[in-house]
């Protein structure tokens, strides 16, 4: 084979350039720490890197969302814990006021304290979160949820509940609406309420002994009507007599879904009602107790009215406590879910990061040894080129 001078130089330069390109590629990999510099280095890997990066970004976003949900749920829980204490204090005060040893004056003091606790409860229900949004007004987070109006309290929000995306497939509900927590508390036993007609003249005070809900109750109403101090009739809503009997104070009378125990002595014509319990807001429940306590009770009849109001109020507070507890339980379980989601997301993030590193990151030891090998190959090529090119017959002419 003839070797031409042009061929010799072309080959030598070509080889050296080839080695330099490879060396440059390894150097670039080492400098950036990335195995793939551009998609053409590994098109499939490059597209997977984009996928992984997007998944990681989304996951970090879910972490942020979850933390936000957690913060708002924690704030709700703290607020509702305070609501529970305030309600329990109101319950103690009410029980204390019901004691026969209290006078009109001491009941008045208690009434004042209860009124103050209504204001405290109202302030709790109007709590704002870190970004100045009301916590308990449903979707209408810019609207103050509760305000005092003539004759009661109004809920200005709605029953919307925000959901927060905490993973690709999971949303966690944010706080519950004030409507649910504070405004819709069914009195009585949560289904049926028993009461004394305002026109009653006796001293009978009615209590429903059924403290659980009755399955299949059709919301019908019943009246227990006293014909005289001993005989009574139970009538349905159309006035038809359902049952009748004789009565002694302390007796318990079955009327529809309720078991009505009447303390004291009803007079002829006195009526005790049994019917579906209405929705009340918890502020009204407490405020009603306060205003009943503020009214003087000087004789047996007014005393009976006070006792009726206290009984109704105590039942109401119990229902409110139950409702707050229910919501706290649900918030607690969502908080736990948020915590576990944070852990799950962290785990997934680790897996994804490992996968990303597997595709993207450079094996540094391997790259360093390739760099060394290619550098010495280049050096050898350069040295041999210098030696060989200096050989020429013309040197000897």
């Amino acid at each position, binding site marked *: 084979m003839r070797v*031409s001078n042009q061929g010799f130089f072309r080959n030598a330069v070509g080889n050296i350039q080839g080695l330099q390109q490879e060396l440059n590629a390894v150097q670039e990999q080492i400098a950036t720490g990335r195995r793939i510099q551009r*998609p053409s280095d590994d098109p499939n890997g*490059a597209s997977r890197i*984009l996928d992984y990066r997007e998944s990681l970004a989304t996951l970090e976003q879910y972490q942020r*969302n979850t933390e936000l949900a957690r913060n708002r749920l924690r704030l709700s829980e703290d607020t509702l814990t305070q609501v529970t204490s305030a309600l329990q204090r109101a319950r103690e005060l009410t029980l204390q006021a019901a004691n026969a040893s209290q006078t009109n004056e001491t009941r008045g003091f208690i009434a004042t304290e209860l009124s103050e606790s209504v204001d405290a409860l109202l302030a709790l229900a109007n709590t704002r979160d870190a970004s100045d*949004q009301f916590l308990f007004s449903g979707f209408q987070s810019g609207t103050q949820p509760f305000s005092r109006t003539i004759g009661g309290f109004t809920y200005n929000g709605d029953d919307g509940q925000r959901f927060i995306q905490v993973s*690709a497939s999971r949303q966690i509900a944010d706080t519950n609406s004030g409507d649910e927590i504070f405004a819709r508390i069914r009195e009585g036993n949560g289904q049926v309420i028993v009461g004394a007609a305002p026109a009653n003249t006796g001293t009978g005070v009615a209590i429903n002994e059924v403290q659980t809900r009755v399955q299949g109750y059709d919301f019908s109403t019943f009246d227990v009507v006293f014909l005289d101090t001993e005989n009574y009739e139970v009538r349905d809503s159309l006035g038809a007599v359902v049952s009748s009997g004789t009565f002694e104070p302390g007796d318990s009378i079955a009327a529809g879904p309720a078991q009505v125990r009447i303390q004291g002595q009803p007079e002829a014509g006195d009526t005790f009602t049994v019917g*579906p319990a209405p*929705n009340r807001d918890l502020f009204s429940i407490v405020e009603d107790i306060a205003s009943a306590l503020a009214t003087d009770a000087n004789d047996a009849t007014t005393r009976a009215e006070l006792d009726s109001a206290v009984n109704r109020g105590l039942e109401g507070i119990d229902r409110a406590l139950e409702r707050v507890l229910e919501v706290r339980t649900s918030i607690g379980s969502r908080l736990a879910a948020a915590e576990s989601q944070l852990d799950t997301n962290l785990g997934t993030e680790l897996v994804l990061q490992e996968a990303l590193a597997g595709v993207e990151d450079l094996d540094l030891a391997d790259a360093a040894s390739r760099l060394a090998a290619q550098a010495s190959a280049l050096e050898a090529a350069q040295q041999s080129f210098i030696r060989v090119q200096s050989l020429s*017959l013309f040197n000897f002419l």
Partner: protein
Amino acid sequence: MTIINTGTDALTAFQRSLDTVAQNIANVNTEGYSRQTVTLRARPPQFVGFGFLGRGVEVASVTRSYSEFLTQQVQTAGSSAARFSTLAGFAARVDDLLADPSGGLSPALSSFYAAVQDFSSDPSSATRTAIFAEAGNLVERFDALDQRLVETTRETTQAIEQSVSEINQLATSLAQLNGQIGRGATGAVPNDLLDQRDEVIRQLAERIDVTTVADSGGNINLFIGNGQTLVVGTERFPLAVQQSEFDPTRREVVYESLNGRIPIENVLTGGTLGGLLEFQSDILDPSRRALGATAAGFAQTFNAQNAQGFDEFGEFGTDIFSIGGAQALASTNNSGNGAISVTVEDLSQIDETNYRFIDEGAGFRLVRADTGQVLPLTGSGTSADPYRAGGLAIVLTGTTDDGDQFNIEPTLAAIDGLGLAAADGNAFAAAGLLRGEAALSNISDATIDDGTVVDINNPNLLDGASINFLTATTFQIDGGPTQTFTPGSPITVNGAEFQITGTPAAGDQFTIARNTAADGDNRNALLLASTQDAEVLADGTLSVGQAYAQLVANVGSVTARAQASSSAQQVVLESAVNRRLEVSGVNLDEEAADLIRFQQAYQAAAQVVAVGSELFDVLLNATRR
């Protein structure tokens, strides 16, 4: 005295040989030069009675060490190598552009959707400001990428123009060389001109695939494409670059035949020009179309979802992004005055190609430009009933003549029209449209949800209503006819479905109302966030992010393939060049040896002349007496 004649002849012959050695040494680095050798032969002898007497030496010819086969191999390999190295070089630019971890689309898309998620978790004025800023960034990123592709298109066009002008110059040189070689054809061969002509053809082949045919007059004729004559004898037919018949902003390569200019791009292959055309049609335009489709898919999906909710002011969400529509351009060759307007009705059916809409006399035909596939049209072309095929709707106005053509680019220029249609972050629709509420006075604990919109176009959608239960199982809407309530199945009111959970009681009332003041409502914001994963492209198989990742992968693999082919072809070229150089190249050691050889012979011949001269002197001295 034969000896003097023989000696001087030999001196001349060796001088020629030395001249040739000098020529070889001088051209040791000349591209395409073939080593030349002087062939010597003994002169015909003279008959002198007793036999033949030698009459010295003469130069028979100067020949070049040449192999036609090897030379053609270098040309062919050079054409392929140039094609792939051009393709790989240009493709690498797009490749670099798309996947830059900080400059590609992905980071902007990710941070936009992160802002949407923040917004959905907490729709406040702060997150509204952030999402609006991120939307602006995303639009800018799309625009920057598209601009880079447009710049690359411009560079490619310039390179094509450069290539065409070089081809024309080389064709002129070839025609001239043909003339010079033809004129000197008196049997002797002008080696250096032949080398030059081979080199010109090699350079031509580096720019475009050529076919060479030698004719009897010593000319080499050159053909390109599928038989178009570039050079015949001393005549040449140039290529030219002119405005595309459809789009004045684009250029196309045409062939100037005797019958006028003919578009020729589709048949040109190989070489730099072939590589450039391939890059333009296989990588650049499809990438721009795909990027346009990605932008359009993103903008349309997001806008559509935004229109399903209420913005900060409790009004229907308006478009957040504007986006460019399909381009439809008439050919300048059309004789009719017809014009078409094209709408992309279903983006998921659009592929990364352009379409031709052709009047065929008997009817119209829609053809994919890349595969030539004909898409059957439905409709009549009016605005009420447009021609429809492949996700496109075409409305024709004016009249067209048989043979009139239109070029349709569904998404190529989409990003030209991409912008922010919203003025600020308040336009993002976070809230749902409706809400349902159970009356506080209800005696049952049944609840109603906030409704699911099933018909957004219902004119009474937002009117609100009140559902009154007459019994636990019957109800009236706004005092209308009595309907039966089946637990678990929804109640439809004015195009929305509401679900009542629990058992209602007689007298219970549920109100449905337009959602107002719902600053914290994130129902639609969650759906906006979920558009990130909505598979709206490529027949509903790819989300916007995935479509972009696929674009990156496609360009990456085409680039990788081009680079692999380029290095392979480079090896083929190197070995072809080496084989040619093995035959035709100059080796200086060899020339040094020849130099010594011919120098010695020259010295010897001079000695012969000297001896002859002495002999002559002896004779003269002898006859002087």
